[in-house]
């Protein structure tokens, strides 16, 4: 079976935080302890929605040292493929679900002398766990958190009251914005930047840091791409000798799994590289949506990341 080891859990608490975000707490069904994790890790939540199974990654936001429960905060995406709507509308306290063991693709670089965190909107979640981890080790950190409004800024009030000097919140509706140039200029040697938020924010921070001469190795970011819907297409799986149909609201990876073919994955968001698959024949255009393959690999049409990428054209044959 692909992906990280599975854990059977029960939903023990559901707390709506605001109009868009709800928090879910999970405890093991056997009453045992959950594995520890490191701040920035995510879990893949298995959602059985009638005849289809969704596997969506969510950052763990609870204290990494608390092994009694995991918590995630989920932003409702009305335009998405339905994972967040399923959690918001169909999951109830007491429901049994399946999570994956934590996987961390956004870990702290503990060699850093200072951790400078930049969050946009729901991108705050991995930082909540990282802050708890750093506080336990007396780490040096600072958080800059941009949100649309006070009402939608999940956890801003708690963070601000617990860490009044280290947390800075910016509200779009008030016309506030991070003065990035000023923030990055003058940070002590050994500072590392962590960014989690929308693509535009990630590009803005990475670009500005580069211009100011920050080393690439000191700039970390996490952007999960939710697989976007698209036109249905057909794919031939050469090894398993199957032809499968990928429907509009399903990812290629999900369609492969639905056909009973075991395919590797970890993040399911185009970031980790685990599901990289060789393309044997391609008569058409691969719609690459990952940020794992480099531009040359995208242009070559020889590789595809089935968790987020799609295809349009006559024929696509995969080595799977």
């Amino acid at each position: 079976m692909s992906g990280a080891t599975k854990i059977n859990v029960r939903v023990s608490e559901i707390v709506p935080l605001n109009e868009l975000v709800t928090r879910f707490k999970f405890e093991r069904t056997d009453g045992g302890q959950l594995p520890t994790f490191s701040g920035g890790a995510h879990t893949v939540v298995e959602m059985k929605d009638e005849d289809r199974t969704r596997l969506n990654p969510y950052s763990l936001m609870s204290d990494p040292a608390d092994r009694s429960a995991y918590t995630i905060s989920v932003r409702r995406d009305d335009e998405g493929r339905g994972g967040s709507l399923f959690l918001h509308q169909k999951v109830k306290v007491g429901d049994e679900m399946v999570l994956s063991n934590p996987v961390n693709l956004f870990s702290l670089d503990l060699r850093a002398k200072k951790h400078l965190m930049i969050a946009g909107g729901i991108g705050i979640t991995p930082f909540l766990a990282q802050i708890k981890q750093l506080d336990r080790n007396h780490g040096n950190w600072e958080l800059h958190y941009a949100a649309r409004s006070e009402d939608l800024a999940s956890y801003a009030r708690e963070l601000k009251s617990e860490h009044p000097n280290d947390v800075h919140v910016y509200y779009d509706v008030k016309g506030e914005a991070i003065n990035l140039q000023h923030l990055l200029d003058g940070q002590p040697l050994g500072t590392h930047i962590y960014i989690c938020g929308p693509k535009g924010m990630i590009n803005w921070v990475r670009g500005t840091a580069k211009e100011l001469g920050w080393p690439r190795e000191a700039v970390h970011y996490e952007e999960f791409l939710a697989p976007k819907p698209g036109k249905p297409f057909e794919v031939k799986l050469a090894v398993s000798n199957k032809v499968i149909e990928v429907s509009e609201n399903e990812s290629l990876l999900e369609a492969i799994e639905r056909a009973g073919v075991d395919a590797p994955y970890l993040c399911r968001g185009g970031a980790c590289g685990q599901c990289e698959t060789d393309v044997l024949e391609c008569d058409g255009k691969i719609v690459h949506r990952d940020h794992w393959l480099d531009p040359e690999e995208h242009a070559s049409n020889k590789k595809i990341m089935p968790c987020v990428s799609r295809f349009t054209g006559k024929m696509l044959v995969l080595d799977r």
Partner: protein
Amino acid sequence: MAHMSKFEFPPSIKSRPIWGCLEARAGKHHLMIADGEGADAILNIAAPDLMAKSHVIYIPQGTDCAARLHALKPAQFYKGPSYLASLQRIRRVLQNSHMGLQVYLAGTEGLMGQAMQEAVTAGIPHTAIQTEHRGSVARRMQCVHCKGITEGVEIDPFVCSHCGLNLFVRDHYSRRLAAYQGVCVDAEDPGNLPEQKGIYE
């Protein structure tokens, strides 16, 4: 051979550092540390606007390059008699620096290795530090038996300047120590030594 200005190191094991070629990078502050013929690598990238933001720390090692470096009008220029003599200054500069500082190291492996160790300790990822080898190919060696460091080793095997063992010059490098490892070559049969030769002969 030992003083050829640009030496092509033979391919080796993964542990062996691969030195690069300096290029001017974006940034508000630049720290350039060089010894001997390393001055030439700085002269190669020395545009006036870059030098106006640069602090140059230079150990001439008997060369006459210091005047040419000084003539580039760096923001700050220091000429020291040895690496050790310049170390306090290097540490002070790094301590007061901010992210965005660009570090350029040029010259012998011993200088680059040790200065890199300081920059890494100060918080710069080692892969973000630029280097260019120039001048002597002599090595800074650590005796793996007594842990003593012998500087400027040009022949293999050599005698440890601390414990006196006959040491074989390995390509196995320690970034933490900024030294190659020297291992006793005649432990089984004391006195039975391979013929001494230049490291790259």
